[in-house]
């Protein structure tokens, strides 16, 4: 206990009397923090941009065409599959989802969007926040997600024009916006929702596809009566319904093209930044300890125990790291306020918290060598050096 007091006293006095030096180290840590948090936020943002819609599905399982390797774009289901799925025991509801992308051109700057076909009230169609659901059939009505609203000034009640290439022609279609849903980014694009029949009419397609008017869903989102029974239900679905394969939401996300590779890249960047952080902090404290050999020698010569000397080094490192991470966190927050919504940065993930925890650990980790060094300094050095 007495040791803790003495160590704290020494640590505080030294920091207070060398504010500049310690602030400098803290600022270096702050910059590393800024970098790591941005990478974490970018990872979260990119992940979100890719998976937001799928992750938000009110469903536990996703049905794909057999042998489509859980790839949404290469999966093309029969129209009656959704009915067969709904008949399976333990399925609460199922909704067909049709994916495609198009471009809103009734804007100063055209905006690429994902165009998803879904059924109101079924899994796959997010809850309406403002306005109403689109009407089915061939009504040219659409619902936009918040990402569209954030990037443009399109509002419920507006009419927009989209452009899709069909065969060799660029076709233009008018859509009336009737509702707004939460952000549902898919394939890094903001999303508009339309009825299946409309989707089939207005989506980009090749010459050969133009002859058919039947919309084929890419996937089916399945909501279970018991959300915990994913494995059993997955097996039952594959058994009862022909020509399908079934994945849970996580598997579906991981199989979105590029998702895993991208997340791996971002994570590797984050890990390397942390490693560099550890080396920088370690180097900094090591140099500092080397400069402090005589003073540590004096401390020991006049009877301070190794415990006091080591503890005071630990307290300083923790303090400086915490200060640096605090400043870095603050800076990150300030910067994040000024970022446009087009840059995919998301700061509220568990990822940022993990990053902060790791950042707080890098100080003591990097400083470990210097602490051991401090404890080993011989008091006699105080007499011989200088």
């Amino acid at each position, binding site marked *: 206990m*007495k040791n803790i007091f003495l160590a704290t006293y020494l640590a505080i006095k*030294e920091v207070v009397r060398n504010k500049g030096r310690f602030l400098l180290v803290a600022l270096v840590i702050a910059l590393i923090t800024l970098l790591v948090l941005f990478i974490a936020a970018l990872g979260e943002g990119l992940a979100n941009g890719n998976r937001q819609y799928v992750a938000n599905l009110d469903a536990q399982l996703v049905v794909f065409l057999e042998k489509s390797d859980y790839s949404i774009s290469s999966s093309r289901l029969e129209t009656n599959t959704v009915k067969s799925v709904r008949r399976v025991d333990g399925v609460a509801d199922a909704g067909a989802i049709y994916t495609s992308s198009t471009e809103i051109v009734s804007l100063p700057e055209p905006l690429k969007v994902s165009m998803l076909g879904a059924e109101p009230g079924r899994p796959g169609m997010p809850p309406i926040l403002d306005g109403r659901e689109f009407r089915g059939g061939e009504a040219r009505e659409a619902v936009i997600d918040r990402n569209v609203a954030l990037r443009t000034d399109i509002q419920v009640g507006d009419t927009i024009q989209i452009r899709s290439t069909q065969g060799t022609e660029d076709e233009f279609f008018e859509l009336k916006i009737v509702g707004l849903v939460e952000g549902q980014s898919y394939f890094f694009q903001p999303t508009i929702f339309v009825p299946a029949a409309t989707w089939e009419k207005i989506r980009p397609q090749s010459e050969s596809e133009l002859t058919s008017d039947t919309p084929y869903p890419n996937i089916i989102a399945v909501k279970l009566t018991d959300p915990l029974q994913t494995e059993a239900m997955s097996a039952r679905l594959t058994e009862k319904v022909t020509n399908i394969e079934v994945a849970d939401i996580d598997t579906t996300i991981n199989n979105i093209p590029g998702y895993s590779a991208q997340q791996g890249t971002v994570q590797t960047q984050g890990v390397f930044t942390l490693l560099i952080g550890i080396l920088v902090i370690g180097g900094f404290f090591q140099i500092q300890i080397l400069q402090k050999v005589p*003073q540590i020698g004096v401390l020991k*010569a006049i*009877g301070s125990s190794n415990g006091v000397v080591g503890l005071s080094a630990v307290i300083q490192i923790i303090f400086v790291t915490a200060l640096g991470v605090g400043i870095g966190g603050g800076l990150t927050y300030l910067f994040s306020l000024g970022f446009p919504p087009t840059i995919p940065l998301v700061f509220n993930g568990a990822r940022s918290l993990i990053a902060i925890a790791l950042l707080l650990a890098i100080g003591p980790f990097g400083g470990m060598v210097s602490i051991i060094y401090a404890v080993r300094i011989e008091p006699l050095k*105080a007499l011989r050096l200088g």
Partner: protein
Amino acid sequence: MSTIALEVRDLVKSFSLDGATINAVDHVSFQVKSGEFVALVGPSGSGKTTMLSILAALLTPTSGQVLIDGQDLAQMNEKQRVKLRREKIGFTFQSNNLIPFLSARENVEFMLRLNGRLDHASRIRSDELLARLGLSDRLHNLPAQMSGGQQQRVAIARALIHNPAVVLADEPTASLDTERAYQVVETFANLIHENERAGIIVTHDLRMCQYVDRVLQMQDGKLVRIYEDKKEIIELARGTIH
């Protein structure tokens, strides 16, 4: 009646460098009583600092015994030696004496903190001691804001404040001008005498010996001569004996 605070018996410290062994301290024996102020003199390299380091339990002797307050240093483990340094020994070094981020007052008070004895009364004592050493107006200065002599005086205050049994000072006057040096050593001597401590001061400057009770002269690690007679010591200090 004064007790023996420090006793050295047949002390040897040898260093081997490049195969050659030298005895930095070579079969030295002496005693210092409480209330006695002793000078350790000798040419550069004669083993004075080595001697002091052993007395301060900072260096283990090759052979021989050191007893401080009756306790044999060789019988102690490292933890006990740290405790001994903290409680029973006061030390000033040739250089790099003070904790650079503590003010003059804090440096002195730190010795009390270490011993868990910092209170109102001891704070007053510490300020008084600094005042006697001419540092009343330097209490809040950091070491870097003081001259070498002022730093040495702070170190002397730190070496005395916790009433150690033995006070060891390695060349405390090296960076002082003669006038200041006399003054500091005289104050040092008075404090040793008043508080009945055993004091050993290492010095090059024989003139400083006028304030001590005994002079131990070292050469090549050996204790070659002891001046105990006050008249002889005064003559030594005046430079009439060599």
